[in-house]
């Protein structure tokens, strides 16, 4: 892998260097440079340090691995590919993503998966190993969000107001969610066998990546959340 030293480069210089280098590469000493890997496809990028906001925005098939934490808006509007973060991610991760995977070992900030959507063969997946902040899956329109809360199982899996405005897609929370209040337009229920089978298919790669025992991850109760209506705005507008 080619190595790029990010120290002293602003976001433009770093991304120009990244584009000039063909094939896989490692970015060393990253500190806050934004838009890393924006729109890229067909290559692997490893980042050491702290990448800036909008990491992998519009990502189109490339695979990005961050060894530490990532900041806000990871995978903003990503189309395809994979972003793996071994630490925590900031707010608004996967904003409007419509394909690919965001796999996080740690916690997610507020508004993870906001306005996530699926389209034809595009099906985005976000898996968070720790906890998620408030407004998880706000306006979610498609795809799957999974929160595992493996780090502090005694604490709440999600913050306040999850699924606000959710009208598509599916959410799996590894918790009975007794204290969590969901909005009226979604249904939250315990996972059944079919859900667990679906989870098994989604979690396999994640568990391999982070060295987790899949049977253990699946051994806890899961809550499944789906929206009630195919057209939640029906009552709000005049039909035409």
């Amino acid at each position: 892998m080619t190595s790029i030293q990010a120290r002293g480069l602003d976001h433009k210089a770093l991304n120009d260097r990244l584009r000039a280098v063909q094939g896989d590469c490692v970015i060393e000493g990253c500190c806050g440079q934004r838009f890393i890997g924006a729109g890229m496809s067909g290559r692997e990028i490893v980042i050491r340090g702290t990448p800036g906001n909008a990491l992998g925005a519009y990502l189109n098939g490339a695979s990005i691995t961050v060894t530490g934490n990532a900041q806000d808006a990871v995978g903003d509007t990503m189309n395809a590919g994979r972003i793996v973060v071994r630490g925590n991610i900031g707010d608004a991760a996967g904003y409007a993503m419509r394909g690919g995977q965001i796999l996080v070992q740690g916690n997610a900030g507020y508004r993870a998966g906001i306005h996530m959507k699926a389209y034809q063969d595009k099906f985005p997946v976000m898996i968070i190993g720790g906890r998620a902040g408030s407004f998880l899956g706000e306006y979610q329109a498609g795809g799957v969000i999974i929160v595992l809360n493996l780090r502090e199982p005694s604490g709440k899996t999600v913050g306040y107001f999850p699924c606000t405005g959710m009208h598509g897609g599916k959410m799996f929370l590894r918790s009975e969610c007794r204290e969590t209040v969901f909005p009226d337009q979604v249904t939250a229920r315990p996972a059944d066998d079919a859900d667990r089978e679906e989870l098994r298919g989604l979690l396999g790669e994640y568990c391999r990546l982070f060295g987790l025992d899949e049977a253990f991850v699946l051994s806890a109760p899961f809550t499944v959340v789906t929206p009630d209506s195919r057209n939640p705005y029906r009552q709000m507008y005049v039909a035409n």
Partner: protein
Amino acid sequence: MKREGQVRIPSGCAIAAVISRAGERMDGGLIARAMEPMHDRSNGLGGGFAGYGIYPEYRDLYALHLFFDTRDTRKECEAFLREYFEIVHSERIPTRRIPAITGEPIIWRYFVDPLKSMLASLQLDEKEYVARAVMRINSENRGAFVFSSGKNMGTFKAVGFPEDVAEFYRLDEYSGYCWTGHGRYPTNTPGWWGGAHPFTLLDYSVVHNGEISSYDANRRFIEMYGYRCTLQTDTEVMTYILDYLVRVQGLSLAEAANVIAAPFWSTIAGERAGDPEAAERHAFLRTVFPSLLVTGPFSIVLGFTGGLMALNDRLKLRSMVVGEKGDRVFVASEEAAIRTMEPDAENLRAPAGGEPVIIRVKEGAY
């Protein structure tokens, strides 16, 4: 001097802070470097810093930092100051001429002591007396503006990028136990020297990233208590709200945070089962101070003598990260800024919306 509000620019900011819990002093170059990785959060229309513990030789005097647009305004303002204060020492604030900072006003500092006779005849406590004098200069004396008025602390601000502002004010020549920094991206006003952050009153300073939608409701309320919002910017009103709640009303910082970033009624209802006392307190504060609920996005750091408080709006519409290493605690809009100050920072976390992070320096160490 063109003031805020004479032009309106429809429109993000960067904040950072470091504090030593042991009261060890750090030079201002540290906070200036923290602003570098966040450069793109500002647009060059404002940068500033507040340092605490920077004037130990004048620690018992109020340090007034002022901008003047002409020499005559300065003379006039000094005459006003002499009516109310003994000016123990006054000087131009040392600056470094650099191409990136232009159009500077005349910048002076005065180390002053309120006149005891005046204090006695007005029957005011010292802080109220100083606050009123500052309000008077800033609202009546066009062409003069007090941008710092605390003891053993000072703010330094200008139109420019924060890194340049730090160089302009020779920030690396000061050392303090706590620093806050701001890079501005003005959203509603054009950006002038007085409008850069931090905003201060006495030893309270606020750096803010966000845009408050409740500005006018908050302003109308706070102006009933003698504060005058002269700048048409939301951070100014936030500074006065915190001064009013903490200094005047005697609330704790955590209570003040529960007023301005109050939990939703639905959240308070949820608390009744598990923590009825908290539910009661939150409901009380919302009921007593409904007009001081601050809505809209904000992340702020409030600096004060001996500590700081970091706070996000209740919906957490702005980012904020906290980390620590040894006796130092770091706060910033981005983790990258913390890593610049301390590459090995530990316990990095993003506080929840409305959750105040209050750090105090060990008693006697500042």
